[in-house]
């Protein structure tokens, strides 16, 4: 099954986007922990787009989320028309840095990379496309 939704690039839409992904995760047969991983990954990706990708005012400030269920699990594709940004090029936060010297950023992308089983980025037709896969647990 493949289903797409378009959300306004606003933080108030985060809860609705998480709910959509959770519903599709259930249909894909993911367990509760895996569903929350997907919710967090989508939340962090969307928050980044709102904060960085759509910094300057523009006409099409929307975010399209497509969920595809398969035997493998759930694939989530997030497309935005904001500034080109490859989240996978961000450095991994260093946990040995003392608290006072830490910058409180970069965790969101780190969550995406840690919690999802496969993450790919592409810039196509002036759009950012982030594709993430969460496997269904084997029982």
């Amino acid at each position, binding site marked *: 099954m493949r289903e797409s939704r378009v959300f306004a690039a606003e*933080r*108030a839409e*985060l*809860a609705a986007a*998480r709910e959509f992904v959770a519903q599709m995760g259930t249909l894909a047969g993911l367990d509760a*922990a895996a569903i*929350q991983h997907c*919710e*967090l990954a989508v*939340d*962090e990706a969307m*928050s980044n787009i*709102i*904060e960085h990708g759509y910094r300057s005012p523009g006409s099409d400030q929307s975010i399209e989320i497509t969920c595809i269920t398969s035997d493998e699990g759930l694939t989530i594709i997030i497309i935005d028309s904001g500034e080109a940004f490859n989240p996978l090029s961000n450095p991994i*936060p260093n*946990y040995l840095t003392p*608290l*006072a010297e*830490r910058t*409180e*950023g970069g*965790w*969101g992308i*780190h*969550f995406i990379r*840690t*919690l999802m089983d496969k993450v790919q980025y592409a810039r196509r037709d002036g759009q950012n496309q982030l594709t993430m896969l969460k496997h269904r647990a084997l029982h």
Partner: protein
Amino acid sequence: MIQVEISDRQQLTILEAAGRIDSSNASELGQALSSVIGRGRTHLVLDLAKVDYMSSAGLRELVGALKRLQGNGDLRLAQPSERVLEVMEIAGLDTIFKIFPSIAAAVESY
């Protein structure tokens, strides 16, 4: 929307947060922590029992509050859910914050 209830117990202040914390509402938690620290309260316990979801935006507020307290008091966490604890571990914050399984244990730790 999240709710934060604040209660003073002698030298301690307990903040009980409830809701799903993301970048749309994390500043509400940050403001609650700032207001408590701003009136000179430095020994804090944050009860997370009713927070079943927290994104990195919530973690940023916790770290911001802890940084404001450094060397003068502490922000200790009680009863995080399995999911919230997991994000703290992935962010490497489980070694920065003192985390307790109950409010009583967090209170007694001071």
